[in-house]
């Protein structure tokens, strides 16, 4: 057992003294040499950073058939990645409700699933719309109706 330990210790010692960064040397005979400069992304957590900006409240004026909205994506991701944003009603379907739960049905149009074209974008804009049929408008009591849409972002492969 002592022999084994001593052997291992010797090996470890050797490792320790090994020169960590091989350096090149120029002198009168070797007058030129190269060094590599590179970036290090080890400090980057995950796939990088991004921001999706979307309206906190989407105001729709009474009797407007189509109201356009947009969300924007800025990202700084690893090569080959992109950001996907999904706009959906994760609750009760596309119905706005008033205080007494009367419904005002609407539909979503435009880019409800948006994906950036590449890993680095600045204010990439995606348009979507909320459409309310005129018949729906006509049949709705004047009131405050609201619904909740959920925006979800994920890092996907470009």
């Amino acid at each position, binding site marked *: 057992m002592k022999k084994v330990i001593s052997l291992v210790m010797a090996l470890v010692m050797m490792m320790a003294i090994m020169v960590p960064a091989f350096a090149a040397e120029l002198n009168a005979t070797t007058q030129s040499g190269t060094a590599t400069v590179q970036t290090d992304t080890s400090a980057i*957590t*995950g796939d990088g*950073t*991004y*921001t*999706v*900006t*979307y*309206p*906190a*409240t*989407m*105001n*729709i*004026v*009474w*009797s407007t058939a189509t109201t356009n909205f947009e969300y924007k994506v800025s990202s700084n991701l690893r090569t080959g990645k992109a950001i996907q*944003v999904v706009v959906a009603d994760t609750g009760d379907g596309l119905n*706005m409700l*008033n*205080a*007494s739960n*009367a419904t*005002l049905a*609407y539909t979503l149009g435009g880019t409800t699933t948006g994906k950036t074209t590449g890993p680095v974008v600045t204010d990439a804009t995606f348009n979507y719309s*909320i459409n*309310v049929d005129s018949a729906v408008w*006509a*049949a*709705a*009591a*004047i*009131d*405050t*109706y*609201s*619904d*909740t*849409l*959920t*925006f*979800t*972002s*994920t*890092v996907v492969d470009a």
Partner: protein
Amino acid sequence: MKKVISVVLALVMMMAVMVPAFAATLDVNTQSGNSTVLVDGITDKGDGTYSVEIPASVDLIWGDTTKAGEYKITSQVQTDKRVKVTLAKAKDLTNAANETIEFAVADATTGIANSAVVNNEAHTFNLTIDASEWAAASIATYEGTITFTAELADA
């Protein structure tokens, strides 16, 4: 001092003009967020709109003791409001000689829409004339008036 006030006022004005379109954000730490779809009808439409279609005229046949009529309500008003129509006799049946036959709006002097949004919702009313009135009346053309008034009433 005036300068300060003017600057402050200007700022306040600016605030008012700014469209309060607050934005929310998602990022690596917050990958999902909610947004409210909001129709603020009351702000947009206020009380809303309604109309009452009343009969052009109510033609009686000599001796009718009751005469039914109909009016229609169309409305799109606030949820908790209803269109309320009130009928009233404005003028008895009167002939050229200013002689009168008395009549009355018998029932349903008021009609209330069934809901905030109705479309040509029909409401009936009845006029009554006593037989004695007919008996005491000289034969002529008589014309009276009934008035319809509409208002928003709470549901």
